[in-house]
């Protein structure tokens, strides 16, 4: 018996052995040869920090076409719940990496561990397409002022992108708006009135109680639907957990802004009015989605990618009128929604090659191919003759394919693989190729074609063609000198990380507490949170973040002073 309990208490073992047991293999694949010759088949292992439930191991049409063209098979693994931090921590502990990796915010850990290779020379030698897409000036891709290496090729954002449609803001069901005669809404108060009125008319939907508003506070999603909307609704742009003063580049935790306190006070009011789902802060991601999919949630404050799955299932079950429109609401009418403020050329989240990769040249050649026109069209449009046709020099999606894209998106994506191969730098919406066609399928006509009838009706009532028309346009704001702060690698300093983690623990505990409090207790809880976020430790963290922003502005030469 002695052995048994001894085993249990030797916890350091678990750190070490867990790391080796779950480390992402693949680089030891015997089929991998040490040649950069593109004609030999090769398997490239990949880890993505975002969840990707529709990944079909390249058995889809686009995947087959990619393998046929490049002899490359991607052995991809995606994080289950998204984020990838734990998985990457285990990788750095064990020193075993996949060949390529999309680390999101964990890039600092990988750089610190020396796991990523500098891509500068590789891109210059073997990356004509990458340079063509991104432009010859690669300086924005440099890691930091002190380390000018390029570790990742940005894959998250499209180059030259001018979005045609909006996916954020406040969401309301088309049915709700229709029944209330498409009222003009501008502030959160209007939002509240709409929810209230409709709920009084229809206490139940499909036999179940109506839920006027629910949010998704499970794990990191709390940032998307609870804390981020606080700055979006008070006229500040998205800089992650910080608000950055555009004049002085000083950073502070954005919840400390007095305007945002008022936003949370409004949520507190919504809860006490019985309009905010009491389960908001206890439900899990899947409960949230299943509520939306039941069609009885009238309003959301979310991004479309977060509830897409539920919306798809609403469409599949023929309840398009229960899907959502996007409205750029503000706390009061003194501010504007800055969702579309220009952040300059994309940087940040991207794909990197690790030291475990046996043949970086072959990999960069593949990534370069993925940036080619051929590959971008393949990934965005699919196979010619199957997923799209060329009529009079124009790429057109046949009606039956479009129908499946809208109403059976999950299965369609699994079969076709369209949009699943975002492995390299690529053009964004609104960029046209040499044939005069758009690279992506998001262009005005196509977006209109993808709208369901209730959605079209709602847009028509507001005199808009797409949801974006309701939002303030890009040219209403100056270009942000530091891009978007959440795209920058955070300072690699243990005391910064600890303080940051602590601030998040405080915020994720106190904000729900404040929202669910009695109205007269709201102030004391919120003020306590602000004082907990104003200790010396926190101020030091904010100072080192301010320094990062200043260094970035200097590195990029975007300082206007």
């Amino acid at each position, binding site marked *: *018996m*002695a*052995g*048994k*309990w*001894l*085993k*249990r*208490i*030797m*916890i*350091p*073992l*678990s*750190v*070490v*052995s867990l790391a080796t047991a779950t480390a992402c293999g693949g680089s030891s694949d015997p089929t991998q040869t040490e040649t950069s010759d593109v004609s030999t088949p090769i398997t490239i292992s990949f880890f993505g920090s975002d969840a990707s439930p529709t990944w079909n191991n390249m058995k889809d049409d686009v995947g087959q076409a990619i393998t046929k063209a490049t002899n490359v098979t991607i052995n991809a693994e995606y994080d289950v719940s998204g984020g990838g*931090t*734990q998985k990457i*921590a*285990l990788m*750095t*502990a064990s*020193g075993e990496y996949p060949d390529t990796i999309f680390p999101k915010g964990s890039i600092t*850990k990988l750089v*610190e*561990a*020396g*796991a990523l290779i500098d891509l500068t020379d590789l891109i210059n030698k073997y990356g004509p397409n990458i340079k063509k897409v991104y432009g010859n000036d690669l300086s924005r891709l440099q890691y930091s002022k002190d380390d000018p290496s390029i570790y990742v090729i940005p894959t998250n954002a499209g180059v030259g992108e001018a979005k045609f449609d909006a996916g954020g803001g406040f969401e309301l069901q088309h049915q709700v708006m229709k029944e209330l005669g498409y009222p003009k809404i501008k502030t959160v108060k209007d939002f509240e009135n709409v929810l209230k009125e409709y709920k009084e008319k229809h206490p139940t939907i499909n036999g*179940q*109680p109506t*839920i006027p508003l629910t949010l998704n*506070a*499970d794990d990191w999603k*709390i940032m998307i639907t609870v804390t981020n909307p606080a700055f979006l609704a008070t006229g500040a742009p998205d800089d992650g957990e910080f608000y950055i003063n555009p004049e002085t580049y000083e950073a502070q935790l954005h919840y400390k802004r007095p305007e945002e306190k008022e936003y949370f006070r409004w949520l507190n009011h919504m809860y006490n009015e019985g309009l905010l*789902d*009491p*389960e908001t*802060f*206890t*439900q*899990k991601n*899947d*409960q949230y989605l299943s*509520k939306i999919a039941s069609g009885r949630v009238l309003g959301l404050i979310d991004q479309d990618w977060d509830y897409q799955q539920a919306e798809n299932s609403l469409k599949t079950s023929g309840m398009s009128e229960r899907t959502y429109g996007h409205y750029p609401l503000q706390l009061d009418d003194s501010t504007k929604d800055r969702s579309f403020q220009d952040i300059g050329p994309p940087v940040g989240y991207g794909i990197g090659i690790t030291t475990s990769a046996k043949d970086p040249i072959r990999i960069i050649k593949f990534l370069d191919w993925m940036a080619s026109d051929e590959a971008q069209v393949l990934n965005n449009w699919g196979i010619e003759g199957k997923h799209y046709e060329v009529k009079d020099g124009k790429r057109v999606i046949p009606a039956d394919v479009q129908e499946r894209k809208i109403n059976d998106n999950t299965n369609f994506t699994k079969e076709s693989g369209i949009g699943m191969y975002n492995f390299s730098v690529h053009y964004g919406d609104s960029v046209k190729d040499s044939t005069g066609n758009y690279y992506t399928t998001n262009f005005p006509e196509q977006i209109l074609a993808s709208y369901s009838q209730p959605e079209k009706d709602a847009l028509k009532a507001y005199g808009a063609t797409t949801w974006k028309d309701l939002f303030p346009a890009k040219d209403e704001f100056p270009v942000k000198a530091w891009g978007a702060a959440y795209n920058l690698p955070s300072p690699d300093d*243990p005391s910064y*990380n*600890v303080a940051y*983690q*602590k601030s998040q*623990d405080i915020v*994720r*505990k106190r904000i*729900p*507490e404040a929202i*669910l409090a009695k109205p007269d207790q709201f102030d004391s809880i919120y003020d306590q949170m602000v004082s907990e976020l104003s200790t010396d430790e926190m101020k030091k963290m904010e100072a080192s973040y301010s320094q990062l922003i200043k260094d970035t502005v200097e590195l990029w030469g975007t300082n206007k002073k």
Partner: protein
Amino acid sequence: MDSTTKQASSRKSGESASARQLKTGGFWKVFKQQKFLYLMSVPFVIWAFIFSYVPLWGWLMAFQEFRPARSFFEQKWVGLDQFITLFQDQQFYLALRNTLAMSFLGLIFGFIFPVVFAILLNEVRGILFKRTVQTVSYLPHFVSWVVVAGIVTKSLSTDGGIINELLVSLHIIDRPIQFMAQGQWFWGIVTASDVWKEMGWNTIIYLAAITGIDQEQYEASKVDGAGRFRQMWHITLPGMRTTIIVLLIMSIGHLVSIGFEKQFLLGNNLVTDYSQVLDLYALKYGLEMNRYSYGTAISIFNSVISIVLLFTANGIFKKTTKESIM
């Protein structure tokens, strides 16, 4: 395992003779006599050495500022810094409190229910009924915590959860209670779901212990006029005592390392003050932030506490009941 083998072997080979020989220094004689038993224990000794002792060198990490991808000799030595940071962190004490609270609750209820259930099952006469109940009750053991957490959250939900529906329809409460949002309910919910999941499974070992009780004792007590409850109290329970105590001492050794699945899956932001446990704390502030050294310091602390608890419990039971595992 090796020590059990040894204990068992020394017991078997004529207690009086071998014990005396051991004391008088005839170790090699005994060794020769029992060489096959020793040989059989060798694989387990090797196993325990490789998996339990070799990784111990990793403890050195706790005295360094460990950075990945550098060799052992390139690491910076920081002495007791990691421990000082640990003991200065308020959150650590909160995590420690929650860990101990939930493990004590688990220990108490995780013992009472299976023991009582085993005794009750033993009294059931219909074999078919008994077997069915037993099987049904241990099935939840095979369900993973992810699923159990889903079932628990769903049944405690205010939006059509069965518990709230039931309480409301029985007019015990007027409005559904937000069970998952109240910190003070959290320990109870964890303990209750743990009991639900593991009770049947833990009963098996007690049922086995009961089977080992000599039937003649029951017959003799019947002759003396003992009823069913007397028999349970004076024969069944004392018959199970050794098993209960051995299991109890071992679980006390695991008090601080209760894992984190339950707390991780059932918890949410509103109840973190009650759901944060040591393992979760080590994951969040250690591993996830690449502070491997800090994580190691936490686990050394855990190990030390475990050993102290184990020896204390063992000592107390040895003195009071003459039963112990060492």
